[in-house]
């Protein structure tokens, strides 16, 4: 079975937020909410600062607490590539999953169900790329099957230094950042 993930090159990302806009349009994300966002992390002592710019979203974790805590079986791991999804018509709006996500990737849709990044499941099932990736002007984002050693994402992880976010939380995130 495929295991979809993303590999994002922080050396190329300029923080233009095209991915954020593309997601809002593609997925009709309600006003005031975002499924993806840009983080700027700066560390060091002036003038020796280093900065990492990252396009972030739900990490489609391999050990997803948001799925385990859902009382309705609405949050689930999909057949397609292990993507973490929400059945809107099963959700009761209890918000347990929002509290369970260490990345704060989820939010309450104004219509009363939990929402977040879906890796654009409607597109990837047709063989297209997620909207955020398809518009990136620096081609810094890659999407593919992490279980396939020949895929571009696997190859990048082979040769480049990388990290994921908050590994200590133990959720096994499936989005990797190249540094």
């Amino acid at each position, binding site marked *: 079975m495929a295991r979809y993930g993303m590999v994002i090159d922080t050396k190329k990302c300029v923080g233009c*937020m095209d991915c*954020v806009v593309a997601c809002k349009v593609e997925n009709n994300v309600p006003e*005031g*909410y*975002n499924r993806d*966002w*840009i*983080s*700027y*992390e*700066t*560390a*060091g*002592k*002036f003038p020796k*600062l280093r900065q*990492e710019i990252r396009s*972030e979203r739900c990490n489609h974790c391999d050990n997803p*607490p948001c799925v*385990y*805590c*859902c*009382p*309705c*079986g*609405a949050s689930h791991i999909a057949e397609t590539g292990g993507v973490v999804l929400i059945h809107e018509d*099963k*959700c*009761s*709006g*209890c*918000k*347990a999953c*929002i*509290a*369970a*996500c*260490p990345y*704060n990737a*989820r*939010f*309450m849709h104004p219509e*009363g*169900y939990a929402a977040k990044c879906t890796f654009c499941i409607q597109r990837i099932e047709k063989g297209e790329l997620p909207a955020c990736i398809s518009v990136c002007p620096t081609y810094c984002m890659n999407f593919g099957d992490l279980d396939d050693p020949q895929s571009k994402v696997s190859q990048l992880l082979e040769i480049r230094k990388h*990290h994921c*976010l*908050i590994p*200590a*939380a*133990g959720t096994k995130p499936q989005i990797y950042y190249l540094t």
Partner: protein
Amino acid sequence: MHELVNTRHNLQIDPHLHIWGWEIGVYLFLGGLVAGMMIISGFFIFTGRTKNTKCSCFLIPIIALIAISLGMLSLFLDLEHKLYVWRMYLTFQWTSPMSWGAWILLLVYPVLIVNVLLKLPEELYGNFPHLRKISEYLNSSHSILQTIGMISMIIGASLGMYTGVLLSALGARPLWNSSMLWILFLTSGLSSAAAFIHLVAREEEERRMLAKADNSFLIFEFVVIMLLLVGFLTSDQVHIEAVKLLLSGEYSAIFWVFVVSLGIVIPLIIQLMAVNNKIRHTVIAPIMVMLGGLILRFVIVSAGQASHWSGQVFR
């Protein structure tokens, strides 16, 4: 320096999580209170105190029924998809404490109703003679009463434990992520329940007994709180940062003044003096204990949401 800025500002999520407000605090408090009531009144029934018709075990179940219904109302008010609360009852998800809780709450009702049926007001018996038959049957043998008492204690304990596990299973919020939390909520529920029953008990002997029990619960609760804090302080950086919210941060004043001092230590001193006949029993200490229990839930629900992992983002 180490600075993390992001462009997201989702409602209820940023700058820090605040998805759960007073409704959840009230619900957790009432859940704990009812749990304590079921354990205490179950214990009274189990130990044969039903022979005394003035025993508060005849009064408590009806109050508990009202309290748990108010708690469920509060929980319902919190749901974003109010009409879809029934979706929790289409499935049982064993990994989800909330699913366990939803089903436990459903078990609480029949158990409390059986408790209520043990003795009803005479007027009701007059109008519905069948009810008298049911009461007579329930009281007919020692083993039936013991079974009712035992089941009440078990379901009550499950309810009290679940209110803590519900939060502690959410590892993404370090301040909730302690296996002491269920012990704290269960003990706090017991102390609030003992305080409440102390207020409504009709017999002096029972009041004294409850005040004594409440003192033990309060001492235990104090120890549990200290161990909870020590547990965090001896854990990793994320949990140390989290517990600082209670020790020196935003929530420290309300925590130490209202929860620990006014909610545990001072009422404990007052009740110890009352039990030793230095002063008279008054309503002051029990009310302080209950308010302390309520504020404890508010503080934990709110401070827990303010605690986070984001300091750990950079490798």
